[in-house]
């Protein structure tokens, strides 16, 4: 077994390959000059990547070998939408049961039943009854995280900033908001159920109702699929941050705290990954990850490979990894443009 690390940056993508996660062979830049916002895989194993640009818009790309990419013509699009919303970025791709979903900005959801070669809007989400009240966070109005219940693909969760966490029980036909216990970052007068700025979500692979949430307003956990959330910040130097991940081998949770929304850098200039070994009851710094630094990790720039491997890419272009669930860390000798997305795949 080998490993692929897909690195999406502000100026293109790089692919790192390794047999043993000790040394990596790097190729790139691919999709040169484009923001590469996320990666995924189609049901048949085809690699997927999304590009974005303030000038030229967003698109989905497919590849059989991670080297040659072809753009999807019939990609997600808001053409014909009831208002003047625009497809700005494609932030996340998730799939189960042969179906792919893409979360985009301006906040929206699309699905593909054709392995990513064509996409259609999920109207139940995109035209939600609260839509007129949706407001962007600092990073824009984006549906940026999708969770799918592996035991029941009809159940899904979508995290959208600054709207909140949505859940569907019918495969995306209808959606409701589930954010009780979380403080809204941008309260809405018209729709009190929205205004929550969720940054990232991760679920327990064997218990889909156990979900952890890095939010603008703190770190939270639900044990009932989102019906209620509790704050879990014991031991953290701050409540703010972007990514949250979980190693399925050890159960360890990971996040990267930042000082505050007004100052989005590590507290005191000490860059460090924090971990919890008890489902979030308590957190501690992973000393092996700590270094002087004012850079940050964006919400799609942390990944696990399912084999004890944890990976982070920073806004300063540093890509680091651990093969022992975060106890020790190494850093690639090459620095990159601002890392927007980082996805590790066992191959």
């Amino acid at each position, binding site marked *: 077994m080998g490993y692929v690390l897909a690195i999406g940056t502000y100026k293109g993508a790089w692919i790192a390959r390794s047999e043993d996660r000790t040394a990596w062979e790097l190729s790139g830049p691919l999709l040169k000059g484009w923001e590469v916002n996320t990666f995924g895989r189609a049901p048949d194993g085809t690699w997927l990547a999304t590009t974005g640009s303030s000038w030229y818009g967003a698109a989905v790309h497919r590849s059989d070998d991670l080297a040659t990419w072809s753009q999807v013509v019939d990609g997600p699009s808001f053409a014909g939408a009831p208002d003047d919303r625009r497809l700005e970025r494609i*932030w996340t791709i998730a799939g189960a049961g042969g179906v792919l979903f893409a979360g985009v900005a301006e906040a929206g959801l699309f699905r593909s039943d054709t392995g990513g070669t064509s996409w259609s809007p999920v109207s139940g989400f995109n035209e939600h009854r609260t839509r007129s009240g949706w407001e962007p966070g600092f990073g824009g109005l984006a549906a940026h995280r999708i969770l799918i219940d592996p035991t029941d693909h009809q159940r899904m969760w979508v995290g959208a900033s600054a709207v909140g966490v949505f859940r569907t029980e019918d495969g995306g036909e209808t959606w409701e908001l589930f954010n009780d216990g979380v403080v809204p970052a941008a309260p809405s007068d018209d729709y009190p159920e929205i205004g929550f700025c969720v940054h990232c979500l991760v679920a327990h692979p064997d218990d889909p109702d156990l979900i952890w949430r890095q939010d603008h307003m703190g770190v939270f956990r639900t044990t009932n699929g989102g019906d209620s959330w509790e704050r879990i910040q014991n031991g953290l130097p701050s409540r703010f941050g972007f990514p949250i991940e979980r190693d399925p081998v050890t159960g360890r949770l990971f996040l990267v705290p930042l000082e505050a929304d007004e100052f989005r850098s590590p507290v005191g200039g000490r860059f460090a990954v924090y971990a919890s070994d008890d489902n979030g009851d308590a957190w501690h710094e992973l000393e092996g990850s700590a270094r002087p630094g004012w850079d940050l990790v964006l919400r799609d720039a942390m990944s696990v490979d399912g084999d004890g491997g944890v990976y982070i890419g920073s806004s300063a272009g540093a890509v680091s990894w651990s093969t022992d669930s975060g106890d020790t860390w190494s850093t690639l000798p090459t620095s990159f443009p601002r890392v927007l997305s980082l996805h590790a795949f066992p191959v």
Partner: protein
Amino acid sequence: MPSRSDGWALMATVEVTIPRMLADLVAGPRRFTVDGGTVEGALAAVVAKHPELGVHLFDETGSIREHVSCFHNGSMVSTRTAPVANGDSLVILQAVSGGQAEAAAR
């Protein structure tokens, strides 16, 4: 995608140059020779050859993207329905505007 508005305009053969970023998407050249009656029509002809470029040149309303600049014989295009003539040059560039402010929350 814009509807072809060239019906009223005389068709002409023009050269269209696109940025390297877009040319790389279609593994093709940067310059195209196409037939069109208007600026918009000529760009639509480029998209007809390479549909992948449609989303990058035109927005959801079918208009040329806000931060995409188009120069017609060296002058910035002010009217996308302006007629073109044989031998005209259209150059697509990314506008000086449109650079995204660094947003930490991605």
